[in-house]
């Protein structure tokens, strides 16, 4: 919340503060003797800036800065490896995350290291271990972000009341000095409502996030999805178009393409989809793995090209076998008419215990294709119970 006299958004103010800090700290990493604390902060600010803007090129630059700092022995290794682990996590390089946690002295046993370890468990499908990990670190370090981690797990496992309670507690930990974090938690609460068909409640949380931290593209992106889910396609398109000017991410272009399709504008849809696909492939070609999931999704649902979808879904599942990648491979196999494989994989995803309308819808379709009409109807009913609007526009998160 900015004072009324300041026309800048909270996002702009924070970005400028980080830029100022980076500029002031630059000398400390360029001039000998190097001030370790300042040098670490300098690298961290790079990471912060990249996270704030959501810009992949900046994240890659931050990664280079972190790697250089580690190589040159600037700053405490544990802190730098923690940064590196977080970057690797963002990029879905889970094996690297594990290696980073081992490389940083004492990092694996530290509170942030333990939280990341639990995140890894979650990503690698060890849900019970993840739950225990989160609960244990919360016991020792009751921070908003650890509470939010556990809330997310509970939400996925269908314990909506438990998730809401934890989000409540997470927000209670946050003070007026952490409005961006508060906005982020509000967004998660909004997503929880949206995925349960409670659109008005989602609006309340998204508006709250916007008031808490103005000018945040992440809020706009969630609002654009919600508009789409409510069938307000033109408004959603307008917001995505604005968003893409600020943050030209391919997944936004894919969402825009889907909205144009829904609006009955195939040419616009085609252009957006092609731009999205080109960027996904460019990332994969240059060694990036974080868009595998989107590629599988894109080929399955936009192109309906089962073989390509299976190819990318398999690559993704090699990195992290969890309900999400299993469902993606199942859906891709379904598109490729490999119904037996699809059935096996969707059953694996379902065995995770995750309760998700989209997952149940996919299970229904796959079971139907395999001749299991009874199960199919049951899954459709389960999907509708969670979210009556499960077939509406949604983005992949």
């Amino acid at each position: 919340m900015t004072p009324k006299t300041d026309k800048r958004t909270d996002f702009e103010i924070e970005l400028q503060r980080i830029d100022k800090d980076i500029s002031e700290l630059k000398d400390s990493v360029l001039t000998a003797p190097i001030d370790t604390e300042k040098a670490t902060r300098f690298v961290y600010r790079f990471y912060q800036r990249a996270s704030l803007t959501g810009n992949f090129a900046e994240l890659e630059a931050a990664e280079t800065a972190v790697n250089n700092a580690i190589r040159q022995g600037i700053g405490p290794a544990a802190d730098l490896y923690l940064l590196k682990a977080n970057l690797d996590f963002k990029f879905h390089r889970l094996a690297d995350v594990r290696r980073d946690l081992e490389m940083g002295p004492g990092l694996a046993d530290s509170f942030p290291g333990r939280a990341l370890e639990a995140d890894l468990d979650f990503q690698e499908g060890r849900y019970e271990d993840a739950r225990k990990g989160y609960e244990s670190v919360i016991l020792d370090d009751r921070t908003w972000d650890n509470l939010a981690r556990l809330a997310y797990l509970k939400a996925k496992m269908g314990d909506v009341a438990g998730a809401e309670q934890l989000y409540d507690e997470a927000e209670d930990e946050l003070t007026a000095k952490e409005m961006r974090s508060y906005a982020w938690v509000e967004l998660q609460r909004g997503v929880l409502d949206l995925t349960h068909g409670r659109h008005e409640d989602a609006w309340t949380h998204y508006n709250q996030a916007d008031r808490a931290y103005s000018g945040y593209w992440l809020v706009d992106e969630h609002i654009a999805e919600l508009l789409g889910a409510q069938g307000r396609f033109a408004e959603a398109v307008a917001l995505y178009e604005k968003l893409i000017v600020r943050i030209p991410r391919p997944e936004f272009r894919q969402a825009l393409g889907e909205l144009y399709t829904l609006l009955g504008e195939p040419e616009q849809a085609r252009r957006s989809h092609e731009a999205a696909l080109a960027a996904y492939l460019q990332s994969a070609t240059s060694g990036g793995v974080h868009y595998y999931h989107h590629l599988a999704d894109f080929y399955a649902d936009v192109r309906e090209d089962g073989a390509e979808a299976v190819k990318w879904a398999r690559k993704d599942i090699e990195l992290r076998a969890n309900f999400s990648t299993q469902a993606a491979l199942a859906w891709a196999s379904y598109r490729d008419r490999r119904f037996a494989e699809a059935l096996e994989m969707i059953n694996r995803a379902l065995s995770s215990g995750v309760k998700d309308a989209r997952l149940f819808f996919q299970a229904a379709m796959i079971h139907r294709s395999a001749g299991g009409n009874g199960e199919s109807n049951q899954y459709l009913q389960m999907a509708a119970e969670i979210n009556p609007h499960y077939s509406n526009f949604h983005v992949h998160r």
Partner: protein
Amino acid sequence: MADHNDPNAVNSIFSDIDVSAADLYDLFGFPSDDTTGGEKVVIALTFASVPEAGVFDTDMLYRIQISAEPRVARPAKDDHSLKALLRYFDTLKDKYLGPLKASEIRVTVDQANRATVKFIDFPGGSFSTVVETNKVLTIDSPGGHSIKTFIGGRDDAFFNDLTGFFRSINYAPQFYYVPHTMADSRELKIPKTLLELEGNDLFNFDPNNPDWGYQGVKGRSSDGFKKDLPPGPLTWTGDRFRKDGNGNYRFVYSGFDCQNGKNINAIILEIPLGFITKSPGHDRIVNTWGESWVLKAANKIETIPDHPFWLEHPMVLLDAIKLDAELKKYKLVDTDGQPFADAALSEREDNRQLGANNFWLAPHFIKRLAHLGWGFGPSISALGLQTSFDHDNSPVSVHKTYSLVTEAFPRVKKTLFQELNMPDDSWNKSGLNIPLRSPLEIFVPNVCAIDMDTTGTWPFGRRLEDQVATRFLSMFLDMEADFNGKKYHLELLNDQSLWDHAPIEPKTPPNPLKNDKEFLDHFPYLAEPWS
């Protein structure tokens, strides 16, 4: 970006641990010398001058809680058992959580830097007013009491060799960059000590780098600096105190004033005793403690400008229900009652910021005191002084922690129960039969207990000119011993003649003897801020 939950997407990996307006520094409290119109008590709560001296953080709420009572009974002199001690804690608990209800002064500051001051649950009722900051003002209560007020920037009234203190407890963040991921590497597992330990290269004074650990301290030859934390082991394996070629020990303190030239923000009040209690003749002890609270994120959004009614009618009687609702919007961050109650005795753990309600810490207090005793006790003995701590004649400080109170208690029994002698009788301005205080009474509960029949010098309150850091160390002296024909007392370690004859370098009292700026002899007493 990623199909997973990622709170760190909002880049909260390293919390920015900046100096915060929530960081309370000191609570001073003493009877005013100005008795015109009746007795008054001066209370000053000081905290970090963020965003700057005289300008307040609008997300903060400060509370000063006050309760007046007759002098508290303590365990019988001859019953220094653990059982009696726990009974004493129970009595306090019953009192503070039961019938005793503190009055309170609540302060918030708005965007225009005007302070809203709420007086809550005083005998004359509750009321509120809006005042300008950085001005000496008088607030008139509905019952006709005049309360002097100053809310603004001042010189930091604390004078202390903070670097020396941190060296004495081997507090790494003062000397090293401690990685964020090594939260447990703060007080290193090295004996606490007043004298340098032979081979303790992690903390011993480095003559080639005299400003090491003095970062941000004015008056040094350089800005000071920290070192990188070495890979380890972060321990000490020696067996003696360090001595120079002349056989002198090296003091961990230098007497340098690390608060030199620094400003703070403060809430300073001079309150008639008759406003605090209906029975000023009976309630001679004014207990007070301060708290800082920060607005919760969810409530920041709801913040609306002060209602015009408040501005037009500054004197508004408060609705108690509304006030409780107000406090629920904030989160307690820090408390302050006794100096060093948190830093020295509670290891600065956030979850131990309990203020007056620190009874549950009583077992921890005993164990922590024993831990400190194993450090400071042998140091005192090495200097040829008598200590109140039972360290089995250990020739050197020992790093020892306790998990059981029953093991720690016999070591600290004397330290806990001994009366702390005053250097002379000047503290007892009334000449009444006022018992001396023991550390036990001073630190549990964590309140500044101002005795209105004394000058309010520590521990009968806390006056600005009190060198409390050194007085704190005196707890570990044996108050039954003599020095130059006089019983040990709270000011002994401030006595230059003691150090002149001690086998130690530098020959100085541990902390500076006076503030860097003269205090005022009139309200608001704290000196003008540095420009």
